[in-house]
């Protein structure tokens, strides 16, 4: 019960953040059919992930509910005991693909949201510190960022995971290491531009402490570009995590994400049993596309530089 309430609160928080980001520019955001569709698709997926235990026909983690004799059934076939219909088929363990997708969505979204939050926090702190401090500290931190960004992220993540071993927490750590630099670079740029504005000088003239100016005056003004790149980065992280899981170094097999589901069914593709990989793949495609489209619309709405 507590758990359900918590999830509802999470959903409400997400919606509030979205509304807050638009802040009176909702009509500008919803200016075409794609905006409605992508927002709706995203909302549906988030709800599916949040309320997977309530919605899904089967708990794919509960071995007692699985029947190995139901393995690799085609979409639409019913189970051996006629208790349920597998609308999207089953995998080789007799697991309902639909339930697997719903639970996989949870893992994918949790990993990407956690990663984005952590990477953003680190990146914002580093970027703002660099912009504020200037000089050698800035040069050092920004060269570190350059170094980080000069390697392909999938390669670095792969190497990290190879040394960490599998695990949801380890995926998050590896992805944070790969992604904090994006935020650091963006925030430093915005912070530099904002610091030169008069309201920061005015705040200094009022005798505020540096910490106060940084956190209360500078940070809120750096948020709009952050919002935009963080939405895009959530989608990127989902893809990255799926790639890692597909390559066998991501989340553990007991806690499959969408990428791992695709990987699990991949071996049966050539024998015509497409559903084990294709449906999780479609779900992945849909959610990544939806997040990217929402992010694009958000950028067009919020970014003052694009306003004519």
């Amino acid at each position, binding site marked *: 019960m507590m758990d359900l309430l918590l999830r509802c609160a999470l959903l409400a928080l997400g919606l509030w953040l979205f509304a807050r980001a638009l802040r009176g520019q909702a009509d500008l955001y919803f200016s075409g059919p794609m905006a409605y569709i992508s927002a709706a698709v995203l909302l549906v997926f988030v709800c599916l992930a949040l309320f997977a235990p309530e919605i899904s026909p089967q708990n794919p983690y509960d071995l007692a509910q699985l029947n190995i004799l139901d393995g690799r059934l085609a979409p639409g076939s019913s189970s051996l005991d006629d208790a349920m219909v597998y609308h999207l088929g089953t995998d080789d363990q007799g697991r309902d693909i639909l339930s697997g997708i719903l639970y996989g969505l949870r893992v994918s979204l949790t990993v990407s949201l956690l990663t984005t939050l952590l990477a953003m926090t680190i990146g914002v702190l580093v970027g703002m510190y660099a912009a504020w401090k200037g000089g050698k500290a800035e040069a050092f931190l920004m060269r570190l960022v350059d170094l980080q960004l000069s390697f392909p992220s999938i390669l670095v993540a792969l190497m990290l995971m190879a040394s960490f071993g599998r695990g949801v927490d380890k995926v998050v750590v590896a992805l944070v290491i790969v992604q904090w630099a994006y935020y650091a670079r963006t925030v430093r740029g915005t912070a530099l531009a904002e610091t030169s504005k008069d309201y920061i000088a*005015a*705040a200094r003239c009022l*005798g*505020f402490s540096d910490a106060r100016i940084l956190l209360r*005056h500078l940070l809120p*003004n750096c948020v709009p570009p952050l919002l935009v790149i963080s939405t895009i980065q959530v989608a990127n992280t989902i893809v990255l995590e799926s790639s890692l899981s597909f390559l066998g170094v991501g989340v553990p097999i007991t806690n499959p994400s969408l990428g791992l589901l695709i990987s699990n069914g991949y071996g049966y593709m050539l024998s015509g049993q497409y559903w084990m990989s294709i449906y999780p793949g479609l779900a992945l495609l849909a959610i990544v596309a939806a997040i990217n489209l929402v992010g694009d619309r958000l950028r067009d709405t919020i970014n003052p530089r694009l306003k004519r």
Partner: protein
Amino acid sequence: MSVLEVQELQTHFSTRNGVVKAVDGVSFSLAEGQVLGLVGESGSGKSVTGFSILRLVDVPGRIVGGRILFRGLDLAAMSQAEMRAIRGNRIAMIFQDPLMTLNPVLRIDTQMVEAVQAHHRVSKKAALARAADALTRVGIPSALERLSAYPHQFSGGMRQRVAIAIALLNEPDLIVADEPTTALDVTIQSQILSEVQGLTRESGTALIWITHDLAVVAIDAVLRQPRHPYTNGLLGSIPGNSRRGQALQQIPGMAPNMAQLPAGCAFAPRCAFSSEQCRSQTPDAQALSLTRSLRCHHPLPEGVSP
């Protein structure tokens, strides 16, 4: 005792192209309730003088010499923490562009309460009352309602009033106003000007008014009977002073590159009266009266009007 006494203030910027002497030996003093106009072309160091007083010159700028005595204490020698206690509390500043000086994402009341609480241990309620009072004083109607507005909900003139209200919040001894009317409508300019002067007169606050617009500086002996050829040139270039059909006078040439100031008088290359002495020897300040001094080898004769 004077509120502020600046003695031989020197603020230099060390850049790649050499040292830029933005402020080089400026001296003035200011008594309680007195208004000082700081006038000059763009890039002549007016704003840097203002920022130097608050010790807010950004790197590569540095105060390299002189003293800034504020009620007898030398600001130039103070620690950062001591300086913070003075900024916004004893000395306040008003900026040029009211569209930029208020934080766009914070409500007016948040910004004003913050400004009060940074220097005084008062409750939020008391701080709010003080903020509303300050807004009323600068002529913002229904101050209590306007407190909960965001900066973008105000017009430019109103925003400058809010900025002035914030400057007045802690009843400072000195306000440095850096071209506060330049970005405003001409009609609003004179309103703001007279209101600020009225408010400072009421409270005995000293005011430094930085501007490049001679029309906003109260007529003073310096302007009525200019002795320096540069001042005369500035006055001659005000459109209102010339007759119809007559070409507007101007000062020939451009303000010198601050990194490579000519030897001697900085104005010599553009001055009609310049001599060999001007090009080799920097003129010393000579006092004309108690409140007036001059740096020129060939001052205009007394009693000449522009």
